[in-house]
């Protein structure tokens, strides 16, 4: 009896500690495990976004060398030739994508039927929508990227100067920005594009990429300038700026070496989100027929082109819309990831 009571009595202290140890180890293990899982999920979506953007950028750059077919009239010597091509290939017109299966009273479509073509189907002219979308990436990305780069250069400079110099300079710059912000964005852009384009021709043929970028730069300057100004004011009052001044640093040096590196992360993450907005804005312009001239595909123009055929050939609008959606989503996800990455560690604690 004594033999049995001793081991049961003795571990009265032990079992609790024994139970406690696995208990605590389980909770300790599970907490970081869930955290890791959560983090990984975010990382996966971010990398998916990066892969999509990289793919798009490469396609956009290399579109001319990639085996894309029949995307626009550009490949033909003249318009007449293009029209004959379209006429002779009338069978290709408005064919659904290869993977589509649907039954419709007017256009029954069966899997593997001969009248289907391409990943994204074809448009009214018999051009491959996938090829057109990838060529469209060129314009959409180029316009988005160039606009935001110029927007940052100009808006960022204005914001830094306004925020650091303050006083009258700040008031003047801020007032101008407020005036631009007071205009309805779309009207402002339509006005600028209309003003700089050849107003004589109703055909948009002569319209180049420049006025569109110009309009979008104007659109992006005020918000960037305001963001940078606000950030600059915060950092200009910080002790390390006084410290730099007390060591004899010039104002230009303080702006570029002390303040800019602190403002930069906010600027870049904002710019990335801004680029997504500008790509959509370009789409809206194209939708109104105010973007790059017709034979060159842009996403907005393609969405607009398919609008009237939405009931019978939905893929003409839906496919470029999907690509634009994915791109904008990817850019935003990347922006979020960068915000996280760029969070400045304050020297506190």
């Amino acid at each position, binding site marked *: 009896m004594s033999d049995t009571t001793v081991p049961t009595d003795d571990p009265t202290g032990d079992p609790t500690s024994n139970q406690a140890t696995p208990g605590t180890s389980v909770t300790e293990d599970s907490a970081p495990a869930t955290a890791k899982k959560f983090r990984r999920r975010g990382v996966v979506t971010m990398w998916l976004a990066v892969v999509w953007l990289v793919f798009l950028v490469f396609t956009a750059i290399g579109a001319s060398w990639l085996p894309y077919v029949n995307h626009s009239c550009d490949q033909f010597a003249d318009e007449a030739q293009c029209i004959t091509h379209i006429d002779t290939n009338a069978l290709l017109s408005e064919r659904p994508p290869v993977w589509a299966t649907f039954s419709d009273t007017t256009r029954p479509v069966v899997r593997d039927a001969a009248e289907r073509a391409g990943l994204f189907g074809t448009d009214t002219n018999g051009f491959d929508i996938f090829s057109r979308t990838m060529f469209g990436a060129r314009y959409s990305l180029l316009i988005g990227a160039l606009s935001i780069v110029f927007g940052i250069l100009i808006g960022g400079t204005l914001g830094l100067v306004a925020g650091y110099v303050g*006083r009258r300079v700040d008031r003047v710059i801020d007032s101008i920005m407020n005036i631009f912000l007071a205009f309805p964005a779309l009207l402002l852009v339509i006005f600028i594009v209309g003003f700089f384009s050849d107003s004589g021709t109703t055909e948009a043929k002569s319209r180049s990429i420049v006025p569109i970028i110009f309009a979008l730069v104007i659109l992006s300057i005020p918000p960037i300038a305001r963001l940078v100004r606000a950030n600059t004011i915060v950092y200009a009052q*910080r*002790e*390390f700026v*006084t*410290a*730099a*001044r*007390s*060591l*004899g*640093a*010039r104002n230009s*040096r303080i702006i570029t*070496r*002390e303040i800019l*590196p*602190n403002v930069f992360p906010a600027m870049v993450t904002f710019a990335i989100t801004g680029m997504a907005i500008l790509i959509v804005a370009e789409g809206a312009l194209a939708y109104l027929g105010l973007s790059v001239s017709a034979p060159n595909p842009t996403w907005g123009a393609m969405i607009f082109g398919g609008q009237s055929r939405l009931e019978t050939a939905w893929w003409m609008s839906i496919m470029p819309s999907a690509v634009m959606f994915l791109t904008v989503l990817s850019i935003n996800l990347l922006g979020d990831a960068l915000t996280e990455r760029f969070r*400045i*560690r*304050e*020297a*506190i604690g």
Partner: protein
Amino acid sequence: MNDFRANETQTRLRPESGELLRIDDLYTHFSTALGVVRAVDHVSFSLDRGERLGIVGESGCGKTILSRSIMGLLPRRNVLRGGSVVFGGAELTTMSLKDRRRIWGAEMAMIFQDPMTSLNPVIKIGKQLAEPLRVHLGMTKADARATVLKLLQDVGIPEPDKRLDQYAHELSGGMRQRVMIAMALACGPSVLFADEPTTALDVTVQAQILDLIERQRRERNMSTILVTHDLGVVAGHTDKIVVMYAGKIVEMASTGSLFGAMKMPYTEALFQSIPKLEQPAHTRLVTIGGRPPNLIHPPAGCRFSPRCPYATDACTTHEPPLVEASPGHWFACHHPVGSERWHEVSVRRREVA
């Protein structure tokens, strides 16, 4: 001394002994919506080469504004300034910004109160330290890096080559203050302002930092101006003490003379509020009653009178002038420590207690 000081061209401004800095009737007033804040009100004193000056006073008495006014670091907007600051024969208050920039860092440098916010969070330590060297002394990248390494060693930072490529948040508070000191010392200034250099640090590190400043001062024949609210800190680290109250100097003396024979009741009150080791445990700390005066509408007469136990009617109407008690010991009080009134009130206070 230091190899990089050989590059110095402006030797004219830095006498090797004698008077280095003279502040005469300096005032800095801020115009605010509520009225004019007299942060520094007609202050005069001088500083010799190699001398250690302490500026003492409670929060909001104008210590920091005084040190920044001397350097000329304050913004120009809404500031009324006057008086003169003569540094090595050159008048600083009328000097152009361009010329003053040449003095900042190279001749006068400042250590700030909070090392947490005084370092740029996104620039590596090494680069921040190299900046003044490259700007003032025109050093090449490699030279600056070597000098920075030596500076970090001088201020007692272990593994300096590693620290060069770290950011401020990777260092501890004491370490950051050492970096700040290294930064201020980089160009070999002749005057070092230390604006509450130890307030943000814990007590064990405080002594190390003060010793470090002291050692560097001796090695470089620098003058230091130590701004603090802690009489205990200045006791061991200064030659001369300026006690400020409400923007004015109320007592100024050599450290020995001040602690040996303090005249101003405010100094006495500050001294009494330091906890003493020989006191029994749980002794109530002596505090100064009331609050620091409003600098927009300072009290009439002696500014300390509303809080002074010895104040009489004369104190609230007539402002006491700064008078010399013994050579070099100045004070501004109608009823200084040791006077008849002082004895009378002290006895009564002791009876009450």
